[in-house]
C-alpha cells in the first residue's frame, strides 16, 4: 500500500482508432471509471493517460477524439498521416507513452477496461512481463474468422517454434520498458508481438469475456480477408521459420545417401554384375540425389545468412535489460483485500 507521497506505478492505455465512433465515448467513460476507482482505492497503480491513435479513421472518429481530448487532460490523440494499420498505430502510441505499464485495447469495446485489473492480477501472480487476454468463447461468434485465425496461428507456431503465437491478442498488458523497446525496434514489416518476444519470454494469458459487439450486431468485422492475409504475412515474415535447418539436414542426408548408393552400386557392378537389372538407372538416381542434396544444402546455407540479415533489419536485439523492482509493491496491493473493492 503506497503512502500518499510515494511515486505511483503508472499505466497508459493505447487504442488504435479506425472506425470506432459508436464506441469511443463509452470506452472513455469506462476508462474514466477505472481511473477514478484506482484513485478512490488509493491504489499504488494509476491510469495516467489514455492514448488514442487516429489511423485515418473513416467514420468521424477524428472529430469525436478532438472533443474528448479537450474534455479530459489525461487523454492524448496522435494522428497518423495515413492509414498504417493496427500494428503501426499501436507502435506509434507506445512510443509516446512514458508509463511503467501499457495496456493495448481495441476501439470497439471488445476489450472492456474493467478487465485490465484481471490482467494485472495474473501478472502479479505469475511475475510476468506480458499478459495476453484470451477469449473464453469465440470473440466473433464462432465465425470463419476465428477458425481461420486459430488455424493460421497454429501452423505458424509449429513451423517457427514460437508457441506464444497461439496467445497473441490485441488486448495485452505489457511492461512499459519492454513495450517501448519492442516498439522502437519494430519496422513496417514487423509483427509487434514477435518483436515483444525478442525482449521477453515471460508471458502468459488469461481467459476473459471478449466479444466483438460490432461483429455480432452488424456482422461487420474490422478485418476483411485481404487484411487478415496481410496480417498473416507479417507474422510469417517476422517469426523465424525453421525450414532452413530442416533443409540443411535433408540436403546433407541426400548427399550422404547418394554417396552410399553409389558405393553400393559400384560394389555390385564389379562383384555381382548379374544383380544389375537395368544399366544407367542407378547412376541417374545417384547423380540426381547428389546434386539435389548439394543444391538444397547450399540454398539453406544462403538462407541462413539472409536470415541473419533479416533479423538485423527487423531490429532483433542482442540483449536487453529490465528493472522489475517495482513489481512487489503492486503485487502486495493486488493480493490485499482492498484491491478491486
Amino acid at each position, binding site marked *: 500500500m503506497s503512502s*500518499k507521497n510515494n511515486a505511483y506505478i503508472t499505466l497508459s492505455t493505447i487504442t488504435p482508432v479506425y472506425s470506432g465512433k459508436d464506441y469511443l465515448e463509452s470506452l472513455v467513460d469506462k476508462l474514466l471509471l477505472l481511473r477514478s476507482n484506482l484513485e478512490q482505492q488509493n491504489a499504488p497503480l494509476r491510469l495516467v493517460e489514455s492514448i488514442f491513435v487516429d489511423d485515418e479513421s473513416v467514420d468521424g472518429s477524428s472529430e469525436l477524439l478532438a472533443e474528448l481530448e479537450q474534455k479530459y487532460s489525461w487523454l492524448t490523440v496522435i494522428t497518423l498521416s495515413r492509414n498504417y494499420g493496427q500494428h503501426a498505430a499501436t507502435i506509434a502510441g507506445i512510443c509516446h507513452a*512514458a508509463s511503467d505499464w501499457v495496456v493495448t485495447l481495441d476501439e470497439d469495446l471488445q476489450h472492456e477496461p474493467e478487465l485490465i485489473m484481471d490482467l494485472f492480477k495474473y501478472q502479479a501472480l505469475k511475475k510476468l512481463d506480458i499478459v495476453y487476454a484470451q477469449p473464453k468463447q469465440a470473440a466473433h461468434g464462432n465465425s470463419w474468422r476465428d477458425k481461420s485465425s486459430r488455424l493460421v496461428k497454429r501452423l505458424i507456431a509449429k513451423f517457427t517454434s514460437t508457441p506464444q503465437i497461439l496467445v497473441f491478442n490485441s488486448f495485452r498488458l505489457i511492461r512499459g520498458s519492454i513495450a517501448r523497446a519492442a516498439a522502437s525496434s519494430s519496422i513496417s514489416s514487423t509483427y509487434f508481438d514477435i518483436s515483444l518476444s525478442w525482449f521477453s519470454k515471460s508471458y502468459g494469458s488469461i481467459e476473459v469475456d471478449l466479444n466483438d459487439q460490432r461483429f455480432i450486431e452488424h456482422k461487420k468485422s474490422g478485418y476483411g480477408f485481404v487484411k487478415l492475409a496481410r496480417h498473416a504475412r507479417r507474422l510469417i515474415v517476422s517469426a523465424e521459420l525453421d525450414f532452413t535447418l530442416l533443409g540443411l539436414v535433408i540436403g546433407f542426408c541426400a548427399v550422404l545417401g547418394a554417396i552410399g548408393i553409389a558405393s553400393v552400386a559400384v560394389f555390385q557392378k564389379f562383384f555381382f554384375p548379374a544383380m544389375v537389372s537395368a544399366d544407367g538407372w542407378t547412376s541417374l538416381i545417384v547423380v540426381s540425389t547428389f546434386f539435389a542434396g548439394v543444391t538444397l544444402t547450399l540454398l539453406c546455407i544462403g538462407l541462413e545468412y539472409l536470415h541473419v540479415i533479416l533479423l538485423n533489419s527487423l531490429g532483433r536485439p542482442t540483449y536487453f535489460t529490465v528493472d522489475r523492482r517495482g513489481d512487489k509493491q503492486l503485487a502486495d496491493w493486488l493480493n490485499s483485500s482492498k484491491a478491486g473493492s
Partner: protein
Amino acid sequence: MSLDAYKLFEEDSKTICIVIGLGLVGSAISKYLSYFALPLPGNTSNEDTWLNAERLATDIILASDYQANQRIELIWTAGKAGFSADENEMQKEFSFYKSVLELVQSKIGDKLNVSLISSAGGLYENSTFVNDIEDVSPQRPYALYKLKQENFLSQSGINSRIYRVSTAYGLGGKRVGLIRALLQSCISRQPVTIYASRDTLRDYIYNTDIARFVVNNILQNTAGCIHILANGRPVSIQALLSSVGRATGKQAVISFLPDDSNTKNILFHTNLLINQPAKTSLEEGVSLLYRRSL
C-alpha cells in the same frame, strides 16, 4: 518565459509544482508531472518575462497560491545561454535567476523547495572520468555560472535538489541537440557539423529518464541533495552515428570540425548513479525520438 503549474493528486492536495522553462528537460518534466498532478491555469508564454525578474516572480507567486498550500515545488530548468555563452550573457542570466528566487522566497518562505537542473557536462568539463561528485572543474563562463547558481541555492536556506545532468536528448524545446539534428539530417539531408571527433565519448540521457527521477523525488519529498543524472553507458560519436543510421535506415550528412574544448571525454563512475531507476538505452532512445519526431 513559459511555466506550467500543477497541483499534486494527494489526499489533501496541498502541494503545487511549478516548472520554469519548457525546453528539452522542462517539457519532459512537465509532461511526466501531469501523470501525478492536475494542471492549473498559470501557463505563461510571454517572452517579456525573460530577464524580467519581478514579472516572473509575480507569476510564480500567483500560481503557487502559497497561502492556501503547504509545499511549493519550483523546478528551474530555464536558460537561454548555451555552452559557448560569454560572461556577459551568463551574468544576466544569473542575476535574473537570483532575483526571481529571492523575490519568491521572500513571499513563500519555508514552503518553497527548488529543484535546479544544472549541467554535468559543464561542471566536469575538465574531468574526463568523474568518481567524486565534488570534483568539479568548470572552465567556461557557462559552467562557472551554473556552479554559481548551485552555490547560491545551497546558501539561500531553501530546501533544494540539484541535478547535474549529462548530455540530454529527446523531444521538446526549441533548441535542437546533436541527436535530433542527426535524425533531421537523415530525413531532410541537411548537413550537420559536429564540433568533436568521432571517438569523443559522451553519456547521453533521455529527457524522460531525467523527468522520471526529478518527479519521483518531488513526490517522495526527498531531502536536498546533489545528483548526477547520466546514463552510465557512454558512447562515442561514431557509435551514436551508427545508432542513428540503424534507427532511420539512412545516413546523416555530417562534417567534423573538432574543437579542442569539445573533444574531451566526460564519463561518470557508476557509483555516482546508484539508486537511480534504469535508464533508456541510447539505441532505444534514438529510435523512440525518431519515431516521435515523425
